[in-house]
């Protein structure tokens, strides 16, 4: 097996958190190798505006035939291979990861999100806990993330936001018509719409241009460079240090151990399918909530028969997906032209705080999204009366310029049996057991999703919509916010990593993706993932300078 020269840090996964760590650690003087299973696309590779290739084929996602995953609702049910359609709960597997194709919604979690158990617990059937860190601990790193990643928005515009010391580096995106339609309805109901904070620049910042309103944000890469993916915001800075090597198309298969039981590096398959080993003084996991857990479980040894860093037995457990979300389809009498503008421009947090009179705890938010120019997706939606023929075509004509999607995202409570583990019966094209997801939404999640859907209906009724379709929550739906599978905590018996996201069991192993989340909030996780990665790297650098990490 080919052996590389030892680096200070080997990072598994070059996405939202992995490239934050790569930038922070290389700038602090460490040598870093990033292993990324997907390709290294460049800005110009996103220029085609091709719904078929980017959204409906496996440009971003692995194929089911080669790298499947399985799902079952509970441990008593047989598992099934996830279809191409449902498998897209995975984030893009490429350099930049999910930040390449996300809508860029960039929230700070609210103060209560870090102490769910003390505020609202306990709740039967869940494993809700307080985080070992507070909003105050995170606040400086949220600010750092907003200013380093490049987030647009208007500070203090939401009466529900946690306290901040500094505004966003650039102002909010120009309001699009879906955003204006939400605002119209929400104002009539006395609610508080505000400009969506987005990891999409609205003017020149940090050497990149602002958004040109071309509309294809969600599920697409940004050919302008305005979207603040880690490909754009972190990678160039990390590469400029001369201390980063990034290896695309390299799938990690095992974290190796030395005789003392410390991580010694990572074994992986290179692009030709040959095994290589990257020795490292520190290993940082950043492969996302599903694959980070899978790699730890794959890395079993005499010392760790249940998988690496898994003395607690909790690796893979407490998985959360922000499901079941509800997506409304709403049409208006006047044109919205939702294919123009920026992904999301107005949002509502009025239903975020717990109100137990609603019959559930926690909350979430709703926002309409520009549809980005996806006529195939619209054509295949079951909203046209008939699925085909003249009636369908006429409906397409009437709907195209007049519709919006409105998304509701609610908190998913952690449930211990919702988990990722190794499928005993199915392997991928590398011969490795695939990730098996066991998942059923807690009843609280379903009530919350239903509630947000109904509130959305009222808002669009007030806004003068001609047609509002509110689907039932899909309890079987998986999602690409993968959180919780290696939760952080102070007690090694009940958590996988400590509050610095350092393994309780393996002192030179860190996890910086959303696996470490204790609860998932009702908000998109990426900014919190990144703020936390900045926080963890700050700790790593401090410890390294003291000689405590790298000898």
């Amino acid at each position, binding site marked *: 097996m080919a052996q590389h020269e030892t680096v200070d840090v080997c990072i598994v996964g070059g996405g939202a958190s992995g490239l934050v760590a790569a930038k922070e650690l290389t700038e602090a003087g460490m040598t870093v190798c990033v292993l990324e299973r997907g*390709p290294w696309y*460049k800005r110009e590779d996103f220029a085609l*505006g091709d719904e078929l290739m980017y959204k409906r084929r496996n440009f971003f996602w692995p194929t089911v035939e080669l790298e499947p995953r399985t799902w079952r609702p509970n441990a008593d049910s047989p598992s099934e291979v996830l279809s191409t359609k449902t498998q897209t709960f995975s984030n893009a597997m490429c350099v930049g990861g999910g930040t390449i194709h996300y809508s860029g919604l960039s929230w700070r979690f609210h103060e209560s999100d870090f102490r769910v158990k003390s505020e609202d617990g306990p709740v039967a059937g869940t494993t809700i806990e307080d985080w070992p860190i507070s909003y105050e601990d995170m606040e400086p790193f949220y600010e750092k993330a907003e200013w380093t990643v490049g987030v647009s928005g208007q500070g203090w515009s939401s009466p529900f936001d946690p306290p901040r010391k500094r505004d966003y580096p650039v102002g909010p995106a120009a309001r*699009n018509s879906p955003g*204006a339609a939400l605002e119209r309805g929400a104002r009539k109901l006395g609610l508080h719409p505000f400009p969506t904070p987005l990891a999409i620049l609205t003017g020149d910042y940090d050497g990149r241009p602002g958004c040109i309103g071309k509309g*294809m944000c969600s599920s697409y890469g940004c050919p302008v460079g305005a979207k603040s993916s880690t490909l754009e915001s972190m990678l160039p800075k990390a590469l400029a240090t001369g201390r980063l090597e990034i290896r695309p198309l390299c799938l990690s298969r095992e974290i190796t151990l030395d005789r003392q039981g410390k991580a010694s590096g990572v074994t992986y398959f290179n692009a*030709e399918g040959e095994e290589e080993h990257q020795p490292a003084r520190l290993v940082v996991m950043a492969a996302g909530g599903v694959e980070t857990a899978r790699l730890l479980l794959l890395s079993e040894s005499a010392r760790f028969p249940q998988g690496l860093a898994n003395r607690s037995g909790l690796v893979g457990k407490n998985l959360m997906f922000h499901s079941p979300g509800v997506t409304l389809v709403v049409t208006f009498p006047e044109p*919205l032209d939702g294919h123009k503008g920026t992904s999301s421009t107005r949002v509502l947090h009025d239903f975020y705080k717990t109100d137990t009179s609603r019959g559930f705890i926690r909350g979430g938010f709703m926002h309409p999204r520009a549809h980005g120019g996806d006529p195939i997706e619209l054509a295949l939606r079951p909203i046209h009366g008939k699925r085909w023929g003249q009636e369908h*075509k006429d409906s397409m*004509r009437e709907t195209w310029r007049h519709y919006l999607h409105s998304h509701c995202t609610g908190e998913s409570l952690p449930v211990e049996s919702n988990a990722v583990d190794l499928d005993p019966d199915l392997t991928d094209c590398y011969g490795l057991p695939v990730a098996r997801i066991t998942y059923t939404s807690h009843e609280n999640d379903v009530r919350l999703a239903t509630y947000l859907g109904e509130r959305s209906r009222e808002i669009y009724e007030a806004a003068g919509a001609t047609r509002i379709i509110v689907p039932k929550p899909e309890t079987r739906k998986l999602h690409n916010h993968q959180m919780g599978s290696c939760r952080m905590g102070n007690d090694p018996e009940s958590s996988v990593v400590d509050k610095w996201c350092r393994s309780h069991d393996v002192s030179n192993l860190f996890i910086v993706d959303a696996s470490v989340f204790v609860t998932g909030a009702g908000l998109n996780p990426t900014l919190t993932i990144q703020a936390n990665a900045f926080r963890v790297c700050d700790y790593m650098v401090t410890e390294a300078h003291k000689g405590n990490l790298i000898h």
Partner: protein
Amino acid sequence: MSDTDSGSVLSDHERTTIEAAAARIVPSDEGAGAREAGVIDYIEGLLAADDVDTDISPREKKEYANFILGGMGGRTEEQQATLFKLHGTGSRHLQAYRDGVRELDRAAAEVASGKDFRGLDDEGQDQVLTVLDERKDPFFTLLLTHTMEGFYGHPRHGGNKDRAGWEVLGYPGPSFPHGNEKPYGWYDANEPDEFAEEKKDRSS
């Protein structure tokens, strides 16, 4: 398949039958339908991908995909096309289409004795397709999906000729590199905006 055209994976009969069915899924009216938009060319292109990878193992396929993806920056048009097919859902459907055409003809004979699907009028063809649709026939769903892809998808994959499908919608197509200017739609132009659009430099 005595009437197979050179270079096509479908026989003339199969090709024209699929084309006729697609033309009922997106009919021609004052605007283009599946026929004018060349949906059949899109479908045939997808089905031709069956030839690409029949003899290689999943592992080899993955390595081939990696090879192509690794060269993304300097990819040729041909490589892009291969990548699309390799990672597409087009592969593996050729047999489903062959069987589907036979089923359309069988069902057509039940509607009008002695006729095949092509031989029916619009109403008869709709009748056959409705039967398949109502019994949730997987081939019909496949054909429906591919027809919508070929009609409304990017012209670079062989369908939506001259953007005919997008023209039906009044969609000018992807707006890169030019972007879009405000106002985008009626509501952002007419609904009062409480939040001033400030883009001032906040770095100080």
